[in-house]
């Protein structure tokens, strides 16, 4: 992913000179405030259009004063549908009870970037969303001041009203909206945002805005969407990645109950878009799926059929004995230092490919008519999805309209829009709206997996117990000298920069398995490996593992070699923030102060990713039959000066800890003949109620840094 601009670690960001407001009246006498801004960061820039100007429109105020605020980003359980509107409502100065939330459609011109990924929503929108609210408030003040012929400076606002203390006059926003809409908007840089002490909404818990619908089973997910006359599709791809259909018993399938269409799709070579397969379209999904069970396809499996997990492991073993193919980073003199080290530790770590397994299987509805395509898509990158659809069926993006839904889990799976491509193609062949729904088996066997990896590590501590040398031969996956998606390692990844003699090298195993970002990409694997090895080195040094980490971060950091920008440590990594969360979790968990029974112990991890600092301590028990039970987990995070929505932040962080357990315990996917072996929640098991840690205590350190995201950085430790 291309990351071009680091988020500055300063409490206040400057707005672009090109930012400006636009207003227009809307039907019903309300007001529509549009606001143009530049993105603070351009994470995922390669996935969607990023014009230099991004127009956004967000607020409608009805005559009765109810403020409807657009939630622009995809909601996948991370709570963004409440969080971004909270920022607007705070500065608009309305009571939350008078706010209604509407999910925005997919419209880059109107809303700017609409992405659920990279924990970017907070750092990218913290100031701009507040300025949207503050700009609207200022225009309402201007309208009131003109109405009363008083200076704007004498007017104040509270709870959706403008007041003039001297005259005792006051008007509700609903009464002022029509007039406000006719006024020239203020320069956003002239707007003074609230002091933290005056917050009424930010920092209070706003519960999930769709909770009432969720608990009563109202339709709101992509899978629930229906159109009159809609048909249902299933799509069979070659189990071996990149394979193509040669022929299929289509006539037999077409004769089955309810089946309307069955056809081969040739597809292309890009696994993230349309790949070859067989589409079956029927009057119900049940019929389509039943017919599919009788499908006989002859496949051209292609070159990936020669790949397997066993082959990957053998290749890694062979690489581990050879000179690495390339060097990622060199500091000081590893070879010389390790010779004279007081203690040397060697270890090999590996982790498997894992599947995202969102509970709502991939689906998308499409209607192609008169050269235009309408899509209803649960996607984390809907704007990119729209582009994929346009490429797939050969229409201009302007011919596509796309609607968003609440998403039944993303975790990075829905960053890729392959299912959007499939349904777009199918819809173009069929004279009716079509809903494509994957089976669980499709979802698990055609994922973009978190890639596995192998780390061959060697480290040394000196006589005083200081970590002085570190070598890693990282055996990962890649083709033609390039890492496959999400299989790379940042050159500044901790503990790099803090060890004077360090060498990180890598070798790449050829890989045709589709890979992609999974919640806290790279970090979700690296943290486990590096934190475990740091523990081993601490034990060798005879040091307390927590103090060992604190001491390591006291070192003056060596120069960062990457641009940073949020994915992993770069120039923006502040060691004192990590030390802060480590000290806090030491205190909260009673680390090092407890005498634990035999078979019971405490473990520790810390990791920086996506601009967030997290440390975790777990109280674990190993039963006589070698089963590990987690009694309690303490987590401390530093995501800056403000946790915007504390209740959901706790929920999300607890979920991250439980997901981390699932990664380690249950999500492994293995491959034979270039195809996934596991297919459903029999071989792949998310952590269940009876396995989850019964207590997970979440605390946040408040620091002076600008607020940043939470969904990803909470996971790795």
């Amino acid at each position, binding site marked *: 992913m291309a990351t071009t601009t680091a988020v500055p670690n300063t409490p206040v960001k400057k707005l672009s000179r090109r930012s400006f407001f636009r207003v227009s009246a809307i039907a019903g006498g309300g007001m529509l405030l549009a606001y143009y801004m530049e993105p603070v960061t351009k994470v995922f820039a390669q996935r969607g259009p990023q014009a230099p100007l991004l127009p956004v429109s967000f607020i409608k105020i009805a005559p009765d004063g109810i403020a409807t605020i657009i939630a622009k980003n995809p909601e996948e359980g991370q709570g963004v549908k409440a969080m971004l509107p909270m920022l607007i409502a705070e500065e608009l100065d309305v009571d939350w009870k008078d706010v209604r939330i509407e999910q925005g459609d997919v419209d880059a011109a109107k809303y700017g970037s609409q992405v659920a990924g990279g924990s970017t929503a907070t750092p990218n929108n913290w100031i701009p969303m507040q300025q949207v609210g503050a700009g609207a408030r200022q225009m309402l003040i201007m309208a009131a001041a003109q109405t009363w012929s008083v200076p704007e400076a004498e007017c104040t606002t509270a709870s959706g009203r403008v007041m003039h203390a001297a005259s005792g006059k006051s008007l509700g926003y609903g009464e002022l909206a029509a007039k406000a809409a006719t006024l020239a908007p203020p320069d956003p840089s002239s707007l003074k945002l609230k002091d933290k002490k005056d917050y009424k909404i930010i920092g209070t818990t706003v519960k999930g805005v769709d909770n009432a619908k969720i*608990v009563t*089973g109202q339709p709101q997910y992509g899978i629930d969407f229906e159109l009159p006359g809609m048909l249902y599709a299933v799509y069979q791809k070659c189990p071996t990645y990149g394979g193509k259909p040669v022929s299929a018993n289509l006539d037999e399938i077409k004769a089955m109950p309810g089946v309307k269409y069955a056809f081969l799709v040739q597809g292309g070579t890009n696994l993230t878009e349309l790949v070859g397969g067989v589409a079956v379209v029927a009057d119900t999904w049940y019929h389509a799926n039943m017919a599919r069970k009788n499908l006989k396809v002859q496949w051209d499996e292609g070159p990936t059929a020669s790949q397997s997990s066993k082959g990957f492991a053998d290749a890694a073993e062979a690489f581990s004995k050879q000179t690495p193919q390339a060097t990622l980073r060199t500091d000081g003199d590893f070879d010389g230092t390790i010779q004279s080290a007081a203690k040397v530790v060697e270890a090999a770590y590996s982790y498997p490919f894992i599947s995202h397994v969102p*509970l*709502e*299987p991939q689906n998308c509805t499409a209607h192609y008519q008169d050269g235009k395509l309408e899509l209803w898509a649960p996607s984390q990158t809907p704007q990119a999805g729209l582009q994929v659809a346009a490429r797939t069926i050969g229409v201009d993006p302007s011919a596509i309209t796309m609607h968003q839904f609440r998403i*039944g889990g993303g975790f990075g799976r829905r960053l890729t829009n392959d299912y959007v491509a499939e349904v777009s193609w199918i819809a173009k062949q069929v004279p009716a709206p079509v809903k494509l729904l994957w089976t*669980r088996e499709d979802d698990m066997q055609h994922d973009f997996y978190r890639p596995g990896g192998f780390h061959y590590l060697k480290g040394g501590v000196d006589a005083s117990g200081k970590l002085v040398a570190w070598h890693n031969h990282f055996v990962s996956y890649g083709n033609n000298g390039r890492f496959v998606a999400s299989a790379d390692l940042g050159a500044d990844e901790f503990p790099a920069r803090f060890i004077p003699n360090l060498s990180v090298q890598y070798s790449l195993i050829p890989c045709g398995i589709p890979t992609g970002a999974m919640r806290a990409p790279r970090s979700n694997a690296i943290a486990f490996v590096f934190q475990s090895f740091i523990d081993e080195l601490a034990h060798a040094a005879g040091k307390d593992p927590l103090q060992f980490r604190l001491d390591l971060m006291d070192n003056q950091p060596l120069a960062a070699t990457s641009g940073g920008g949020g994915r992993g440590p770069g120039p923006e990594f502040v060691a004192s923030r990590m030390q802060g969360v480590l000290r806090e979790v030491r205190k909260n968990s009673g680390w090092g102060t407890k005498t634990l029974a035999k078979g019971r112990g405490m473990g520790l991890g810390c990791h920086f990713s996506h601009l967030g600092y997290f440390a975790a301590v777990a109280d674990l028990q190993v039963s006589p039959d070698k089963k590990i039970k987690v009694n309690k987990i303490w987590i401390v995070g530093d995501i800056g000066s403000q946790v915007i929505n504390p209740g959901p932040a706790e929920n999300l962080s607890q979920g991250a800890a439980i997901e981390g357990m699932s990664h380690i315990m249950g999500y492994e996917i293995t491959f034979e003949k270039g195809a996934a072996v596991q297919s459903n929640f029999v071989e792949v098991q998310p952590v*269940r109620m009876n396995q989850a840690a019964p207590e997970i205590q979440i605390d946040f350190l408040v620091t002076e840094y600008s607020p940043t995201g939470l969904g990803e950085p909470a996971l790795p430790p």
Partner: protein
Amino acid sequence: MPYKLIVNGKTTTVDAPADMPMLWVLRDMLNLKGTKYGCGIGMCGACTIHLRGQAVRACQTHVSEAAGVPVTTIEGLSSDGEHPCQLAWQEIDVPQCGYCQAGQIMSASAMLAKNPKPTDKDIDAQMAGNICRCGTYLRIRRAIHRAAEMATAAKTAPSRNGHGN
């Protein structure tokens, strides 16, 4: 083949193959979308419904087995969205993505109907069949205890919500 179904107190007839799972009958024939598809093999619990008050997986229940038997889905758990589980789930703010929660509530409500004061161990045992991919288990547990409290407090009331019994 036509089957007479009694879903959420309403009688209706559907024409479906005998082995068609109730999951798809409910979702695509009766337009009750609250019952969710997650795995199709009874391993995730997202499609949990009540059959004669028992929590069952709709993906593993053929339409022929459900014919003539009272079926309750999340849409019919209460007439007003005020079953103690529905209230407690909102009060505790349980959902993240929310996709599994209808199934969680249907499993929990069936348990509470038989065991009004479940222990943590009871909850572990009863709820282990319902996956929450987002990991909201701690809040689900709290919400079940809270719903139990609410139900106990309301016990003197003459009418009960839902079709759980």
